[in-house]
């Protein structure tokens, strides 16, 4: 009844190209934006920001980036952890090397550097396809982690090889370091996420997005109708790399503040981000958000219920957590192979017809 498109006519192609063509969706989007920017910052404390919102926002950026590569362009990558590490280490080198430049630009440049590295490792995708490519990107994962661990220049020759994010601010508001306020860190990441999500949306609805999807759906046919596969794949790797790099830089500088490459950006990170987009939905920006939210919230929720609520031993809870997440992934795949985003779409279709299903 409330959710429908009837009567919501588009008179120009421009209107039809909107991000949210249905009025109801648009209003909901405005409401979410309002809440995210104007309400939540006043309500949150350290716990909510550091344990839930920051990981969610940053993982969402990484998930969108990976979704561009995997979901839109069809190039499966297992190198996300390594590429996030590139972003983190680039950011660290920039922060300590050029302290006079603002952190904001450091993060953007870190994204650019990661895009470049990502393109380098994306070049084999012109000849290697499918699972073989996925496994090949593991070469990037292992090599990059090894490199950052091995070459002392990357960690400024510190004794242990850890990198620490020094205190930096924007408009005199501290963003990084232990003295940053929860709301400042939150808003800083939220701005990045919002802008990057809009960019992702713009890219995926336009020409470049269509070339990516064409390559994904049938690469040979795409090439014959005029898609340059090199350009399409490389641009996907570059854009994806940029997103992942920014998320890595934020992960290091704003969220964790101190990072050891093998532990934080190991192979598990690659898999985690991949799970996010699969659970959320491949080829869907909303899905990237949903997947990131799901995999950030679920463990915290399970922990709070099992340990905090039921008082179970922590190790049992941790084992059960694995078991439940695994089972949920399988159940999701059986119920809806195309992820939370598809589930959401189906729900909306039903709502459109409600209360007259026939």
């Amino acid at each position, binding site marked *: 009844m409330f959710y429908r498109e009837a009567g919501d006519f588009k008179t120009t192609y421009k209107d039809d190209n909107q991000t949210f063509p249905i009025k109801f969706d648009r209003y909901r989007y405005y409401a979410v934006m309002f809440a995210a920017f104007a309400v939540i910052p006043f309500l949150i404390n*350290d716990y909510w920001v550091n344990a839930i919102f920051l990981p969610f926002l940053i993982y969402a950026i990484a998930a969108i980036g990976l979704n561009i590569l995997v979901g839109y362009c069809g190039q499966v990558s297992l190198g996300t952890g390594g590429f996030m590490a590139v972003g983190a280490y680039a950011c660290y080198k920039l922060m300590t090397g050029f302290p006079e430049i603002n952190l904001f630009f450091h993060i953007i440049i870190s994204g650019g550097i990661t895009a470049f590295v990502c393109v380098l490792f994306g070049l084999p995708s012109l000849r290697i396809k499918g699972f073989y490519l996925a496994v090949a990107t593991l070469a990037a994962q292992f090599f990059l982690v090894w490199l950052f661990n091995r070459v002392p220049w990357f960690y400024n020759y510190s*004794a*242990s090889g850890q990198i620490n994010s*020094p205190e930096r601010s924007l408009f005199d508001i501290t963003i990084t370091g232990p003295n940053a306020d929860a709301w400042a860190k939150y808003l800083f990441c939220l701005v990045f996420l919002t802008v990057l999500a809009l960019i992702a949306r713009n890219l995926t609805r336009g020409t470049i997005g269509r070339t990516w999807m064409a390559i994904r759906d049938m690469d040979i046919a795409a090439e014959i109708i005029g898609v340059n596969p090199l350009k399409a794949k490389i641009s996907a790797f570059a854009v994806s790399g940029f997103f992942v790099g920014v998320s890595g830089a934020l992960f290091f500088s704003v*969220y964790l503040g101190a990072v*050891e490459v093998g*532990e*934080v950006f190991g192979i598990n990170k690659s898999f985690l981000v991949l799970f996010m987009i699969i659970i959320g939905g491949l080829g869907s920006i909303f899905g990237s958000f949903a997947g990131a939210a799901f995999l950030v*919230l679920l463990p915290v*929720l399970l922990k709070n219920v099992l340990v905090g609520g039921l008082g179970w031993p922590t190790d049992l809870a941790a084992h059960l957590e694995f078991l439940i997440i695994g089972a949920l992934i399988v159940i999701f795949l059986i119920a809806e192979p195309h992820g939370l985003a598809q589930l959401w779409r189906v729900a909306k279709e039903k709502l459109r017809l409600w209360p007259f299903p026939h």
Partner: protein
Amino acid sequence: MKKLATLAVGAVMAASPVLADLVIPSLSYRTGPYAAGGIPFADGYEDYFTLLNERDGGIGGVPVRVIECETGYNTEKGVECYESTKGEGALVYQPLSTGITYQLIPKTTADDIPMHTMGYGRTSAANGDVFSHTFNYPGNYWNGASGAINYLLAENGGDLSGKKIALVYHNSAYGKEPIRTLEELSSKHGYELSLLPVDHPGQEQKSQWLQIRRDRPDFVLMWGWGVMNQVAIQEAANIRFPMENFIGIWWSGAEHDVLPAGDKSNGYKALAFHNVGRDFPVFDDINKYVVDAGKAAGAGDQVGNVLYNRGLYAAMLAAEAIKTAQGIHGVADITPGMMRDGMEALSITEEKMASLGMPNFGPSFDVSCENHGGEGLVGVAQWDAGSKTWSLISDFAATDGEVIGALVEADSSAYAAENNIASNCS
């Protein structure tokens, strides 16, 4: 939204008001790649506080509440654990992971909560002038490296020149810790050092041990953790490297590290900053008040293991710091800030340990504002495969303060400069 609501309810329930208590968070890892090491430590840590509660009614009349939080050795989970427990009035953090330690050093400082990284973490945190809230007494990795060399010097009549020493290390921040110290000491004592990194997890070490077999170093030192320890000891046995010339750091010297290799691991040595075995009166109390009462943490089957003892020792140091803090401030229900003062004024003496039923359980040491690292005394323990026990073969002895002091100074001042940290003690 429903999820959020549930969460919020959970948080409210968890935060419901309780009577005065001393909150000790235990960031443990009973799962993940290092579970085997995490379980005994967490059990020992918790059991000691249970003992204090059951036997003495807490510390200074205030009961201790241990909040266990599973990190799985994962930094992000560690952050979540820290944030979820710090609001409960957590007195001291024992994060038990290099990654989480580095992550928490600035945070705990900003939140005015002390952190105790006992025998791990950032070595240069021994400089309390820079690291106001981080303590790593009684010993750190560089003490460990120096302790190992000192032990070898003693074994070899004070001369190591021309000897070859190989370091097999976990290729991570943790494993790389001793390298600088060993290099410095190598130029001082004239031994030849070779470095053999092993990538996580360390399941495959054939290359490294073939190289050791070829190069025939006189001694092998190891900075390993998790499965790397078991494989290294097994491989050393396979190439028939004399076990008595193989010395691990204290994280490479627990029962589960040597047991898989069976009899062949006999004679393997590991560094120690606390005593091993269960030949201490405190264990009678633990059995009486904790284990037999059915209140033991975990499965209750770890009592007396090396890492259990380490957890016990860490808990004892925390409890003594609480007592010190209570004495300084004259309050029983202390705050984290008071706890920090207590830790900084901590003095562990032989008499004190004996009165706790733990005579010679660890070295005597004093903490001060400048020195958060204690005296850095290091002992050596040896494994007897026949009786399946560790025993201390070299008592806690001094390490090369000159070399280590310089390194601590250099690293901590670099950190202070990078992060604009003012002097804490002056």
